[in-house]
């Protein structure tokens, strides 16, 4: 067990390698109850959320969810979060390590006609992720009716759940919000149901490896309050034209001048795991640092993300990374490192919308 944002979490249940393969080939079940969950109600909630985050939540219909960023006035990333819209208001899922900070941040800006409630401890959250997640989830709901980044209600193993087709692995799958006193029951039932097909419980190690292969950024590693969305490669979440929001004027300037740094993907040689904070150089000149790195059991080589000077590296370039006191060779590769089953869903969604 390791401490993760104040929660005691398993790095692995059995082996990171086995759990990682289960997620990529069948499905894995993650306990992500540590993530912060807030409910926003009141007449002012839609306008309030729209002013707090970067993406356009006005475009969200009931039953839809959207990836978002919270920024400070300088355009730095306070946190990344998923915003859900329902008939009774909004719901947000934030990083565990930022829960208290985010709650204070929302409350500082909230007008009187917005209610904010921290539901983290009343609700459990588990994520069932993998190419066979839909087929192997014991569930009463018609899952085909829930599109990628959509959500609905249903019973999972006889327990009421809010079922969201979202995740942090690059695979198709579901995040299930279930009352805290019932979530253990659903957890056991999903594992029992899927065991013979190869479903495994998956810990933080498999979560980090799968999210990194899918190039999903981790707050605190790949981005923080000193990094703006364009540097983090998250410009697609910023809708400058939607009206005012915190950080917008700073971002307009960044957009006009061009970001000073960029996040790139690196492929390393077997055995050379680039660790967070390791220096990255080109031709002997230091251009940046590793923000995340691990060994990808699934791809068979180590992978890393690095924050480097803008235009210092392009796909196909060679770089050097400090590994165990020496310079290890790295190749800049296109992100993501791996496209899982979530991609076909987003493609379908895009084609449906024209």
């Amino acid at each position, binding site marked *: 067990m390791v401490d993760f944002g104040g929660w005691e979490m398993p*790095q*692995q249940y059995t*082996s990171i390698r086995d759990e990682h393969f289960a997620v990529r080939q069948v499905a894995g079940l993650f306990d992500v109850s540590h993530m912060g969950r807030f409910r926003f109600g009141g007449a002012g909630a839609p306008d309030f959320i729209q002013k707090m985050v970067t993406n356009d939540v006005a475009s969200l219909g009931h039953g839809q969810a959207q990836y978002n960023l919270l920024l400070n006035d300088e355009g730095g990333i306070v946190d990344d979060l998923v915003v859900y819209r329902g008939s009774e208001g909004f719901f947000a899922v934030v990083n565990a390590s930022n829960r208290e900070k985010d709650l204070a941040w929302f409350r500082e800006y909230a007008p009187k006609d917005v209610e904010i409630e921290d539901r983290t401890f009343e609700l459990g959250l588990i994520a069932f992720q993998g190419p066979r997640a839909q087929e192997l989830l014991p569930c009463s709901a018609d899952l085909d009716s829930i599109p990628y980044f959509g959500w609905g209600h249903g019973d999972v193993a006889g327990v009421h759940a809010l079922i969201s087709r979202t995740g942090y692995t690059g695979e198709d799958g579901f995040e299930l919000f279930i009352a805290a006193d019932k979530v253990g029951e659903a957890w056991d039932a999903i594992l029992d149901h899927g065991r013979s097909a190869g479903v495994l419980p998956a810990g933080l*190690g498999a979560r980090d490896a799968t999210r990194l292969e899918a190039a999903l950024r981790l707050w605190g590693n790949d981005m923080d309050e000193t990094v703006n969305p364009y540097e983090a490669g998250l410009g697609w979440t910023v809708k400058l034209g939607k009206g005012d929001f915190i950080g917008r004027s700073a971002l307009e300037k960044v957009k006009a001048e061009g970001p000073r740094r960029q996040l790139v993907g690196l492929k390393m040689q077997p*055995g050379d*795991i680039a*660790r967070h904070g390791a220096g990255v150089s080109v031709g002997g000149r230091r251009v940046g640092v590793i923000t995340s790195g691990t060994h990808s*059991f699934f791809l068979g080589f180590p992978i890393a993300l690095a924050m480097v000077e803008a235009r210092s590296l392009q796909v196909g370039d060679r770089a050097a990374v400090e590994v*165990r006191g020496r310079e290890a060779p790295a190749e800049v590769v296109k992100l993501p490192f791996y496209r899982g089953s979530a991609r076909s869903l987003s493609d379908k969604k895009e084609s449906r919308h024209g």
Partner: protein
Amino acid sequence: MAERRYTKTHEWVAVDGKRATIGITDFAQSQLGDVVFLELPSVGRKLAERETFGVIESVKAASDLYAPVAGRITEVNDKLSAKPELINSDPYGEGWILKLDLAGDLPSDLLDEAGYKKVTEEAAS
């Protein structure tokens, strides 16, 4: 099979006459998590007691490997380059790391099973 002895830094050594086999303990592999790579020395190299002879890289971190006893390397477990996970699955068997010809006496501070168990209990608490 020779009796295993342990160090406080989580290596084990099994001595049979003048030959010693060394590896890392089950506790060490469980703390490291999935091992992905080992950087190991060549046969013939002489190791002093406590000398760093290699690096073990797991998903979590890179850690130095220390020689629990002094000696000359007679064999390196070649299987580990293709299957480093043997360290996790069988740390006292197929996951052995080096064989040495012992030089001099065994260090007096090597621990027996019970003594090492105490060390791991303290480390875990």
